[in-house]
């Protein structure tokens, strides 16, 4: 059955740019609320049945995430004094398809906590950073976290230090795996409070979708069972069912148009053949992610908005945060088989906020995973210790134990917002559409590095307590290839001089332009941002719909 379509000549209520974690929620909420919606998505509309257990295609060939070979080169530099160079793999990595990166993510759904929204007030300023409070509190967002739990579909059980919640999880926790058991036992031994990891993967049927079959191909793959709660399966079908939402695929937004009055009039885009179109709309919702949303705003400059649209604060593209991480791998005597089932089943949040007496800001969580994403090529490529054999007979002998007898404890940590860490337009490199390539300028703040090291040290202790016979690992800063948490680049705030959108995601400068995705985050959280991005989208959509009904968009 053909879906709803709108002609370009007809103005719709909303054009939504992007169909991912946030855009999918926006499309569903605004169309269900009665508005007409066109969603522009630059990639295809894959269905669950299209996904394959094909590591070479998805991980090695970037079938979902794209890169230079598909005509989307990116450049990177550490500081603004350097010249950015094209990277082999995209620095800012996301999936180009309906559902965006919610299709191929690992689906860890940690709520942010009260402290995340008010840390600047609690801790004071941090020199050289844009560390700030959010314009909203946890209490403002709580109903929307619960909405994510139930309408997106999350499995879990209330944890020992969870923030208050108005309702339990719709699905019980996923069955524990061996890495989770090892983390739980080690954590208890050391006096911590490990608990079942909340995940956007169904442990039992929910909202008409099937339960997980534990195939192990979550992280970096699409779920062929529709058990992973992507926007693609949880939101988009409901948006389309309203008859008021058109998902226009292979359409790449090139520019948000504005008129003399400074209002957005619609979006210019290229279709799959490169033909330019203009979709008129009463308002524009930008949910293209923390990399593409700022790029599109910068590309939408005009005489009225010479520094880019919605950028009177100069904050568009600034405050790029990735979340730091550390990893510790342990070798065990018995089979762990971390390649089976979902990425993570246990988490420790005893270090959510580090003691200020350590001398640096930070916090995070530690979860239990496979050593290499649980897939064979990756395991053979880099699961082993860095000083272990890399080829030959000894290497061959090590492959089986690296694949079946290792577990990893991974630290997920805070990143500080800095003006000098940002997304901008590359002055020389262009993409297949002729647009300036995404240029990343990024260097971890010293506090972020100290925090990652803290989590590495705790993970090492846990791994020793778990009884590993051999332990290795590293810390990995942001700005490494394929960073997937793209945060902070159009931050929310009450002050138009230091933020891009207000607390309802309306841009300070353009009254009918709303921006909601990872770019909205004021601080980074503790390493699992998608649930918060979707809670923000549900909340923003409520307010946008109310404003729409009273004629205020």
């Amino acid at each position, binding site marked *: 059955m053909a879906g709803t379509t709108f002609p370009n000549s007809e103005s719709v209520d909303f054009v939504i740019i992007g169909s991912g974690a946030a855009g999918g929620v926006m499309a569903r909420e605004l169309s269900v609320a009665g508005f007409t919606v066109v969603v522009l998505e630059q990639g295809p509309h894959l269905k669950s049945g299209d996904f*394959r*257990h*094909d*590591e*070479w*295609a998805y991980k*090695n*060939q970037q*079938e979902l995430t794209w*890169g230079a*070979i*598909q005509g989307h080169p990116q450049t990177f530099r550490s500081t603004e004094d350097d010249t950015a160079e094209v990277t*082999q793999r995209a620095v800012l990595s996301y999936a180009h398809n309906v559902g965006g990166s919610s299709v191929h993510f690992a689906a860890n759904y940690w709520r942010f906590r009260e402290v995340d929204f008010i840390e600047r007030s609690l801790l004071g300023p941090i020199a050289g950073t844009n560390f700030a409070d959010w314009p909203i509190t946890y209490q403002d967002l709580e109903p929307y976290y619960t909405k994510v739990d139930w309408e997106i579909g999350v499995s879990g059980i209330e944890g020992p230090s969870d923030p208050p919640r108005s309702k339990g999880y719709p699905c019980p926790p996923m*069955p*524990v*795996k*061996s890495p*989770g*058991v*090892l983390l*739980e*036992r080690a954590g208890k031994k050391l006096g911590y409070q490990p608990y079942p990891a909340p995940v956007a993967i169904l442990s039992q049927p929910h909202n008409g979708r099937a339960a997980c*079959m*534990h*195939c*192990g*191909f979550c992280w970096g793959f699409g779920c062929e069972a529709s058990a992973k709660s992507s926007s693609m399966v949880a939101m988009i079908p409901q948006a389309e069912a309203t008859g008021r939402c058109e998902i226009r695929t292979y359409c790449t937004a090139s520019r948000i148009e504005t008129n003399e009055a400074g209002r957005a009039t619609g979006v210019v885009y290229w279709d799959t053949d490169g033909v330019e179109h203009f979709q008129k709309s009463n308002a524009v919702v930008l949910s293209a992610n923390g990399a593409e949303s700022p790029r599109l705003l910068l590309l939408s400059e005009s005489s009225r908005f010479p520094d880019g649209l919605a950028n009177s604060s100069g904050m568009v593209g600034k405050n790029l945060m990735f979340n730091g991480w550390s990893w510790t791998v342990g070798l*065990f005597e*018995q*089979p*762990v*088989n*971390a*390649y*089976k*089932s979902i990425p993570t089943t246990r988490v420790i949040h005893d270090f959510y906020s580090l003691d200020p007496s350590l001398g640096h800001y930070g916090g995070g969580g530690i979860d239990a995973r496979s050593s290499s994403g649980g897939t*064979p*090529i990756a*395991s*053979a*490529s880099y699961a082993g210790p860095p000083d272990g054999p*890399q*080829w*030959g*007979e000894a*290497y*061959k002998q090590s*492959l*089986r134990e*690296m*694949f*079946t007898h290792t577990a990893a404890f991974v630290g997920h940590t805070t990143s500080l917002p800095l003006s000098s860490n940002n997304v901008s337009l590359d002055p020389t490199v262009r993409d297949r559409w002729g647009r300036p390539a995404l240029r990343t300028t990024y260097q971890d703040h010293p506090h972020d590095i100290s925090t990652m090291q803290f989590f590495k040290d705790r993970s090492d202790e846990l791994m020793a307590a778990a009884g590993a016979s051999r332990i290795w690992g590293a810390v990995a800063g942001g700005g490494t290839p394929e960073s997937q948490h793209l945060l902070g680049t159009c931050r929310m705030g009450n002050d138009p001089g230091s933020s891009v959108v207000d607390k309802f995601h309306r841009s300070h400068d353009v009254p009918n332009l709303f921006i909601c995705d990872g770019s909205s985050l004021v601080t980074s959280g503790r390493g699992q941002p998608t649930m918060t991005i979707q809670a923000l989208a549900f909340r923003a959509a409520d307010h946008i719909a109310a404003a729409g009904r009273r004629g205020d968009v």
Partner: protein
Amino acid sequence: MKRRAFLAHSGAAISCSWISMSLPAILAASQVSCKAKEEGAAFRVFTASEANEFEAMAAQVIPSGDSPGAREAGVIYFMDTVLAEDQTGGIDRLRSGLAELQVDIRGAHGAEAFAGLGNALQIQVLQGIEKTDFFATIRYLTIAGMFSNPSYGGNRDQLGWKLIGFEGPRGWSPPFGFYDADYAEKGE
């Protein structure tokens, strides 16, 4: 110095070991190359002597022995398939690296081909180029050919997956490993 371009030691360990296929090529390869994995099938880009050389190197990365290695798994057919579809000039880089290596082998060992050296000498030669992009590319393609889906031409009869204990891509039920079985048994 120019001659050393492809065997030069690289600062970035795997900077050139990057082979990129277009999406249509990935899909096509995953469907049609099943044919190519039959032993003795014709190669798409390799000459017979190139295939001999690269297969000998792959067989040093994952040797045969008590259990099958890269040779038995048909890694050379995977290499041929992906290099035929690669859009980054990978085959040219590999050919240039091989030509340089063969010059070195001729000078040092008086042999015409890597594959003609004895096992110990082959290992010694590869140890000498361990840090090069050329070797990183061979290693990368050997691993990918050993452990990717058999539909790409390598991992024949799932020999790679059997080697590491990967029981094939399918669904599972708990218990998944020893420790969660033990956990369930003890009622923790």
